[in-house]
């Protein structure tokens, strides 16, 4: 691997993550592939795998997947399988797929019908956060643990899990520090740089990832910042962004991405696992209840006002703490989970005085160009109202 450090290294790993994984594999690492932010990486790591988040590639036209998945499916997950079919994930030693949303569920299951990895597990995830859902989810985690033990022949003790929890909590904490550094104006680190780090971390052994994150923070803290020429600070809400083509486009149009509520970002790094006596309790709580993705149903209460407050009040706090000027709602076409949420979230943001831009995009860099004018217009309007 290239001997760089900090942001430069994060950028290198982001760009070459498959190659980096293959190099690590040659050095003896095993890779446990997983989909979405709902798979407890601690568990994979405790079993001796480097947890490797499977993502798509917006630069790669989807071709092979056409014979397996329909075009009305979310193109992000179609892209994931497409890369799998093209052999790009051939270094994986196993796959854990969650019932996060329909697309995550089906693609994981279709995937393992064709690729017979030595170890696979389908993790069912309840839709509610009722007490019984937590009990059930904990049982699911116990099955995952047992499956990993049986396959690897290793015993995963509570202490092993606790050790991993601490390591990943440290990682999450470091990423959150970076997020906090972006509360100031001008932010010393860009949305693009944070995304590069986030993607890198999701393919490295945890300790190596933590060292990288520490280097990045150190570097960012000592950066000399010039006053920003940016037109406004935005929060990105919605479907995941795994490619800097989008953050760069937004930044090129004069907007600073200072915070996100997406699955490769604050939903992944936002909350720690509590160190409970039985580590599965902490894991169940964190992965089921604390991650706030609209895929999880929260009680509506008796009326709409209650419901909106239950579901979205955390966004009000983000807007305030990060001094947000506008919201970009990122919707990948055919993502039902976010699609149904759009009118209400939009309403909520508008009620608290936020200008909102909603874009339904096709998860393809080739299709990004026409969006430029929309981001430019949005930047102008934000600047005018600042």
């Amino acid at each position, binding site marked *: 691997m290239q001997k760089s450090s900090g942001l430069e290294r994060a950028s290198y790993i982001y760009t070459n993550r498959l190659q980096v994984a293959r190099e690590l594999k040659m050095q003896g690492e095993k890779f446990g592939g997983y989909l979405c932010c709902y798979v407890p990486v601690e568990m994979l790591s405790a079993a001796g795998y480097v947890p490797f988040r499977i993502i798509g590639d917006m630069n790669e036209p989807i071709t092979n997947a056409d014979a397996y998945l329909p075009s*009305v499916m979310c193109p992000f997950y179609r892209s994931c399988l497409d890369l799998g079919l093209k052999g790009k994930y051939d270094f994986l030693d196993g796959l854990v797929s969650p019932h996060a*949303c*329909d697309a995550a569920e089906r693609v994981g299951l279709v995937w393992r019908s064709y690729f017979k990895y030595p170890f696979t*597990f389908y993790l069912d995830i309840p839709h*509610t956060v009722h007490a019984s859902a937590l009990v059930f989810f904990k*049982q699911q985690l116990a099955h995952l643990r047992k499956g990993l033990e049986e396959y690897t022949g290793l015993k995963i003790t509570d202490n092993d899990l606790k050790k991993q929890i601490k390591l990943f909590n440290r990682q999450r904490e470091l990423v959150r520090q970076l997020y906090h550094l972006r509360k100031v104006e001008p932010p010393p680190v860009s949305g693009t740089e944070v995304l590069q780090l986030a993607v890198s971390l999701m393919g490295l052994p945890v300790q190596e990832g933590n060292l990288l994150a520490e280097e990045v923070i150190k570097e960012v803290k000592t950066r000399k910042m010039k006053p920003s020429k940016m037109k406004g600070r935005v929060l990105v809400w919605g479907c995941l962004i795994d490619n800097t083509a989008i953050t760069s486009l937004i930044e090129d149009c004069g907007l600073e991405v200072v915070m996100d509520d997406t699955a490769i970002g604050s939903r992944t790094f936002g909350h720690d696992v509590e160190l409970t006596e039985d580590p599965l309790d902490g894991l169940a709580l964190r992965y089921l209840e604390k991650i706030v993705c609209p895929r999880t149903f929260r009680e509506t209460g008796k*009326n709409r006002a209650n419901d909106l407050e239950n579901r979205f009040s955390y966004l009000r706090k983000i807007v305030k703490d990060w001094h947000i000027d506008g919201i970009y709602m990122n919707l990948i076409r055919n993502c039902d989970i976010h699609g149904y949420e759009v009118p209400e979230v939009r309403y909520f943001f508008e009620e608290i005085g936020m200008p909102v831009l909603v874009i339904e995009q096709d998860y393809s860099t080739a299709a990004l160009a026409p969006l430029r004018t929309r981001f430019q217009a949005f930047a102008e309007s934000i600047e005018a109202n600042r």
Partner: protein
Amino acid sequence: MEEKKKKRSSAKTLQTAREAGYFGKKMLANTRMAVDEGRPVAWAMVEWWLGATIAKAMGVELVFPENYGAFCAASRTAEPNLDYSESDGFPSTLCGYARNCLGYARKLKENNFVIPAESTGGGMPKPDFLLACGAACDARYKWFQALGRYMDVPVWLLEFPQTGSKEYFLPGNKEENISYMVEELRAFVSFLEDLLGRKMNWDGLEERLDILFKTHELAYKVDLMRRTVPSPAVCTDFWALMIPHLYLPDDLEALAFYQRVYDEVKYKVDNKIGAIPNEKYRMMFSELPPWHTLGFFDEVAERHGVAFVFESWNYHVPPPLLEDEKKGITDPLELIARYSYHKFHHAAPAAKEYEIDPILFTAPYLEYVRDYQVDGLMFHPLMSCRPATYTLMHVRNLMLERFKVPSLVIEGDIVDLRVFNEEEALAKFDAFIETMDYHRELRKKEGLHW
């Protein structure tokens, strides 16, 4: 031209199928009557008999917006609702039934919750709560949550765990799934008791369950009889007949009706009367049909002697629960949980045998194709229902690979009639006949039994 227009809705081959639409209208009328009489009403998702019977046992009348969507589509009145929901910011890629309902709900709200006069089938009245479901499809709860925009009513989500084929056989896993479902059902009963201010009528629930199982047993026997050559009923019959067993299985009138369905089908089997004259090809359809153009199936029967002998796994009743599984169960909630879980996982052994996933929408077809001696499949990828579309390509691959049964893919939609090109579909069909002939020979050579 007139002739063509008429043909778009299907003639249906069973007398009972021609009568089944009554049950859809009955549901709508019952809910409106309930509102007039001050009784509680809910809108419910199709939830595979998990919660509707419980709610009904507590005196709630239910109507199913998915069914209403199909109704509006079949009568070609969905478009204005779709446009209305889109103008409120819902993406046009969302489920057609959902957009129809969201548009309808917005109109209802704007009319102070008085049903607009022009509403299809007399319209759905404002509910006291919404009964969402976690099975098979995200729209089944996200859509109802989104209705909060128009209605200040609570949503209850009926949880429905989904198990992978390998995981189904993990020691303890199935029982944990069932216990979880039972706990969730208990919470649902408490929710209802709080909301309605009355106690659960447990005896009433048991009576209803008894009727449900009887109706379903008949429906299952009808399915089995459809294995006969020539097939006594076809898909267009089923799509009408499914209304009573899917939505009203615990209704005595539905049970009596299903006895008649059974008798009619049995008569045809005993007398070797096929649903279509001169059955030459036996096909299967997956998953949801073009409601607006069902006459298409009459047309291919007429042109090519194609009988659609089975279809739409999702809407069929499962095989009955084994006696062993029912033994000793005294809690009706457990019985309900077991049965619903079984609906989604009854094909787990087939999934294991063929080492495939998922169980839902996929594995059952592996059994059907053999049992119903299928020559070809018609897949109908939908623009707006992803769950019924996700696995079609996958099943197509499996069918060809494992059974040498070819598939025909014709795109369309449940609601949006603009995306279904009937002429093109018929032309594709004409060409497909040869493919089926070819594969018939291939199967023979490989020693497959049909």
